């Protein structure tokens, strides 16, 4: 590629600049073409993301029968409900705990993977560890559900072999919460692993050698070489995962559908229950909109990260 690019560079120089008027015409035509090429994307996003988002805002301000405008009434109503307060708490708990766990486990796994010789060997390990992430989540969650089943839990059978009592996996609030988080961690850790592995591989070995010469121990290398070099990718991965985890629907819907006693409901599943299953579309829309401020908070940091990155590229 480098060879190819040097030739045209010379050609540009020899040809000289075209006349200004044609330049303008070309530029105008070019930007029209450019816009047309983007048009499918713009239409898609505008029609099925931006418009529905604003439509959700409108819906959320109607009454249950969708006949009258109630302003922020639905939001106020929700905030007063004890169940909804639980939903807020659980959504945050679910997302934050799961993302932190995934980030830590992914980091450990990436390091372990980095330690072993690359090549086919590493590929096989990587392939094995990627399996949870490859199976469609809705389907693997069904297996988890069956393993947690109260009448014949495969986990309880193992516990019984060690003389331990049955655990009501999805029957007690806090245990059920942990179970939903565990399934999410199981599913999402491989993603963190491969992102971090790629980042690790991009850290130049010379930096470690230099650190060794300066007498740095392993921990110091981690904190002063590895982590700073990976900062960008960690931030992007964590934030991306935070969005996805926060909006998770599949796991809670299939495992517990919000129970026991609403102790596992998150925004998405609660919106589904009230909006679609109980036919209160405006209240459901209001519920799901509560996700937005929290996501926008994440957005701010993603945006900063992305612009930072593009500045780095420019530099």
């Amino acid at each position, binding site marked *: 590629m480098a060879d190819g690019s040097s030739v045209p560079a010379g050609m540009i120089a020899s040809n000289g600049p075209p006349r200004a008027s044609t330049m303008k015409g070309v530029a105008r035509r070019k930007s029209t073409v450019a816009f047309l090429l983007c048009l499918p994307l713009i239409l898609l996003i505008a029609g099925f993301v931006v418009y529905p988002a604003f439509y959700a805002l409108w819906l959320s301000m109607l009454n249950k029968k969708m006949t009258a405008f109630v302003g922020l009434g639905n939001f106020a109503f929700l905030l007063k409900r004890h169940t909804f307060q639980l939903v807020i708490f659980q959504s945050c708990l679910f997302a934050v705990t799961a993302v932190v766990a995934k980030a830590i486990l992914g980091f450990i796994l990436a390091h372990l993977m980095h330690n072993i010789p690359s090549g086919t060997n590493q590929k096989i390990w990587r392939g094995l560890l990627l399996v949870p992430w490859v199976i469609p989540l809705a389907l693997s969650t069904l297996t988890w559900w069956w393993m947690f089943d109260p009448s014949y839990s495969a986990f309880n059978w193992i516990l019984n072999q060690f003389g331990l009592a049955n655990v009501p996996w999805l*029957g007690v609030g806090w245990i059920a919460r942990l179970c939903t988080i565990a399934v999410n961690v199981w599913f999402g850790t491989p993603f963190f692993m491969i992102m971090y592995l790629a980042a690790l591989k991009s850290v130049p070995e010379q930096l470690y050698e230099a650190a060794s010469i300066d007498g740095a121990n392993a921990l110091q290398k981690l904190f002063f070489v590895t982590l700073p070099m990976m900062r960008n990718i960690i931030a992007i991965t964590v934030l991306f995962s935070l969005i996805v985890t926060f909006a998770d629907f599949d796991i809670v819907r299939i495992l*517990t*559908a919000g129970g026991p006693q609403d102790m596992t409901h998150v925004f998405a599943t609660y919106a589904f229950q009230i909006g679609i299953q109980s036919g209160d579309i405006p209240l459901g829309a209001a519920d799901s909109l509560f996700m937005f401020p929290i996501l926008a908070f994440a957005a701010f940091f993603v945006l900063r990260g992305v612009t930072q990155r593009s500045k780095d590229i420019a530099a």
Partner: protein
Amino acid sequence: MPKSSAVTRRGAVRLGAAAAALPLVHIRTAGAAGKLNIGFWDHWVPGANDVMQKQVKVWADKNKVDVTADFITSSGGKLALTPAAETQAKAGHDVMTFFNWDVYNYLDHLDPLDDQMKRLIAAHGEVNSVGSYLAKVKGSWAAMPTSSGTQTKPPCARISWFKKHGLDLREMYPAKDEKNALQDSWTWDTFLKYAELAQKDNMTFALGLGSGVLNTDATDTHGALFHAYGAQLVDSSGKSQLKSDNVRAVLEYAQKLLKFYPVDAPSYDDGTNNRALISGKTALIFNPPSAWAVAKRDNRDIAADCWTFPAPKGPKGRFLPMLNFFWGAYKFSPNKSAGKDLIEFLMQRDNIEARCIASEGYDLPPYSKLTDFKVWDVVEPPVGTVFNYPLREASGQLPSLAASEAPPEIAVQIYNRAIHNQMLARLRDGQSIAQVIAWTQEELEGFVR
């Protein structure tokens, strides 16, 4: 095919989609006089859908109507979601299946069926009280109570286990209409005694406390229990009755009974009790005969040891949990009169009975004169095991639907949120009756919107 232009456009889109995806069920008759799209409940008993299909075809051929029948599963909330979607879109089926409060939910979109119901009631007798509560609004029938999917959820128990502990279920409730002294002593207090024995025996009654719409078996059971104590959460005028003596009485009783529930009762879904019965790990469940039918396939010895019989009696009566299904014609349907004809045809006695036989007696026609089909006497093993499954007036049972004492718009929320189960789950977690009532009060306030 005469129809308005707006419908043609929608119809064309739908038709295109359907053609591409190969509709499973499509009856086409030469020179069809019109098109009809009907959504049935997807029967889990193999072969039951086929009989329905045949009956639809008979009608379609006779009337030269092009009928497409969809069988929609009730699991995953699909059967509840479909009308929600269709009434929003004002397009979809012409006739749809509704259950529980859905008739009320979509009242504005349903065309009255008073003429049809007048004829059906004249032929089949009165609709049971739960059925008319759900479908007859302000004196007008908004939907037609159907046998397809309609079920009761009586106790289904192990004959040998109860016999070992001194109660012969087949003597108490034999496979014939009979009154005896044993029946009078089949009360919730007796039930409590056996629940305790069962737990000691490692045959814990598989009673759930699951949440949402995942565990309606338990919601229905507890609804019947509350009714048996006359305990109303909200009365018909919408006023909270939580502070009433009856509510306190039922909760006091429940405190005793809950000790003998399975440890993981809050994580129950509607399949858990079935699995417990089929694997021989429980002495009693509340369920339609689906659990028994699967046992018949997977574990025949246990099926042969199962007996379905009426619910226990409480101070205020003997209440049988009931789940009602309806057919309704959408107002927006261009061909609703044909649709009404079809469902009336399907609700003729011969057709109902044929479908009952095909479903091994699972379907229950909710009309008072239709409890005399032979199928319930002959289904086995053991012979007569589901004789008591239909709600027979002679048994002195009253139909029960959890929360149905409340105005429908509140009741549906109490039911869908499984408030009864949650109250009991809290009680079992050690909360006091006062705390549970306070929590329920707060929940109920949220429903009045």
